[in-house]
């Protein structure tokens, strides 16, 4: 676990949560074949909220956030993102995907394109942004994640932490209204975890709506305004971070927390 709070004071001035609903999930169920992965999930995310999702391996955390931008299809219930309901209509899906950024555990950068091209590709092709403008935006975000000097290298030449920051910049170039993170730091060495978390904290400070699957409890305590604990495809407990960590209600949560805080 990487300690963050001592080293850095977090600017909460922009971190207000508005009444506007960003994501609404109602009675959502998903099966893989006959395996019931997500069971009756209900979740409302306000705009500006930062939610950390944790839970044991195989509990369906990845599946849940992948359903939000339809990398996985749910079989029953509703998911409404930014007022658009996720259905099999391809137009809706592409629209939602371009509004929702996603960062993966293994970065998923495009190895045949330079860092800059990785960042400008979607704005140019999906948003029809002129190339020059897209490049300016890309450089702006690369500066933000502190790697503008790597812009003309290929992803294979960067360290893991740098690659993940590029992946974040690549998503930001689409000016998303919501960001999803699926264990963005779990493939990284401790040194690099910190640089990625710093980038994510900065994002939070700017008021981005964020859903993060992560086991970085320091991060959860620092920026989350809600922590969700999942087990066996269900939301078992959710609470604001201090309460969640100091006073967990369910037995499952207590067990889980004792295990991860233990080491």
């Amino acid at each position: 676990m990487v300690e963050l709070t001592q080293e850095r004071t977090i600017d909460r001035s922009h971190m207000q949560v508005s009444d506007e609903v960003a994501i609404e999930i109602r009675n959502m169920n998903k099966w893989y074949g006959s395996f019931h992965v997500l069971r009756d999930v209900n979740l409302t995310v306000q705009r500006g909220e930062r939610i950390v999702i944790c839970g044991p391996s195989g509990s369906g955390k990845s599946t849940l956030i992948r359903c939000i931008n339809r990398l996985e299809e749910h079989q029953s219930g509703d998911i409404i993102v930014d007022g658009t309901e996720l259905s099999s209509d391809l137009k809706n899906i592409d629209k939602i995907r371009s509004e929702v950024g996603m960062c993966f555990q293994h970065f998923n950068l495009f190895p045949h394109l330079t860092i800059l091209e990785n960042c400008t590709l979607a704005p140019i092709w999906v948003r029809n942004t002129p190339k020059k403008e897209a490049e300016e935006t890309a450089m702006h975000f690369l500066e933000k994640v502190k790697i503008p000097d790597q812009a003309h290298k290929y992803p294979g030449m960067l360290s893991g932490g740098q690659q993940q920051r590029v992946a974040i910049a690549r998503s930001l170039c689409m000016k998303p209204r919501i960001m999803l993170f699926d264990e963005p730091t779990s493939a990284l060495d401790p040194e690099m975890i910190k640089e990625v978390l710093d980038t994510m904290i900065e994002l939070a400070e700017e008021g981005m709506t964020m859903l993060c699957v992560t086991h970085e409890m320091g991060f959860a305590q620092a920026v989350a305004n809600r922590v969700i604990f999942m087990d066996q495809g269900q939301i078992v407990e959710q609470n604001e971070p201090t309460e969640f960590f100091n006073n967990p209600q369910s037995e499952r949560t207590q067990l889980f927390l004792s295990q991860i805080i233990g080491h």
Partner: protein
Amino acid sequence: MSDTHAQTVPYVRKTMVEQSPPPASEIGVVKWLRENLFSGPLNIILTLISLWVVYWVVSHVGPWLINGIWDADSLSECREIRNATMGEGTSAACFGVIGERWQQLVYGFYPKEAYWRPVVALLVFFAGLAPVLFASLPRKLLYFTMASPFLMFMLLWGGSIWGPIAVALGFGVGYAAIKLISPINGLLGTVAAIVLPILYWFLIAGPLAGAVNSVLPIGLEYIPSKDFGGFLLSSIIGVAGIFLSLPLGILLALARQSDLPIIKWCAVTFIEVIRGVPLIVWLFTASLLLNYFLPPGTNFDLMLRVIIMVTLFSAAYIAEVVRGGLAALPKGQYEGADSLGLNYWQSMQLIILPQALKISIPGIVNTFIGLFKDTTLVVFIGLFDPLGLAGAIRASTEWNGIYWELFLFIGIMFFIACFSMGRYSLYLEKKLQRDHR
């Protein structure tokens, strides 16, 4: 390691060890020889056997090549020259046949006064190919590349200039359909872009070309397909097959991965049926059976039929090679593209295919080389490829009885073409190398 315990446990290095050159026994020719050729009893024996085989081949073929006689008009003249200058029974090739007949091997029965046309067509081909092969050339040249197939057709077959132009306009029709209709309805635009050009080609292109030609007859002398032969024929079939089968093969590979069962099963059936039957059978089908299916009186060029068959045949192989490349890509690449909001065709064109094709380059080029060599099979359906012509030359009275020299020439020509393809594929692989592995 006796001092291990003498040291106190914490250890800090005070001086760094500098890099030094390797010992002398690790470099030089002698070391190379010992390590690579004479490193053990087995290796010594193998080296000696190889040396003997090389000597044996060179000592037999060498004199034959060096003594080769170039200025003779017939095999008997060759023999006379040999007997007069080198004595009877000396081993000597008779390359006179190549000097006298190379034009036939290269052009077939193409009219002599029009030999310049295939030559110019070849130049057009390379000029059109260059910007495709070498990304450093200006992209504007690609417009010439697009025009080059029509230009080459015009040069090779001749006839009215309006025919190729009318056909080319069909692509304009398709492009216009996409540009005008797609913004209104994407699916309708795609369908229109396929259907409209086809309708145009079947119904309008012919009469249009005829009408314009009657007003303004410009063109080259028409040369029928049956006059084509030799390397000209092989190259046309090979090049057309290669350039048509690549896009078709890619589409088939994508279709085979499709989520829509109908598309998927059509692709699978097509690939399996085509692959499962020898090419020669397809060529016979092209030359004989199609006549039964086509309405009587249609004159469907045999060469065109062969090109279609060869294309379909290699497309099936390309599809499987490309499918391997697609399968080798990590799932994360598809998800990365999806999560950014790229649609199916965009993610294929920008993310998936560039990487999958890169992986597939060796397999694709392998298929192309096979295709090019397989063009010699057309000899069995009565087209005169270089081998067919070699047969014809040997049947003539002057050259009756000659064969090594002709086959050597043909072999070298094919080797040059195939070897360059192989080299280009290596160049491309190196150039596209993006990771440190």
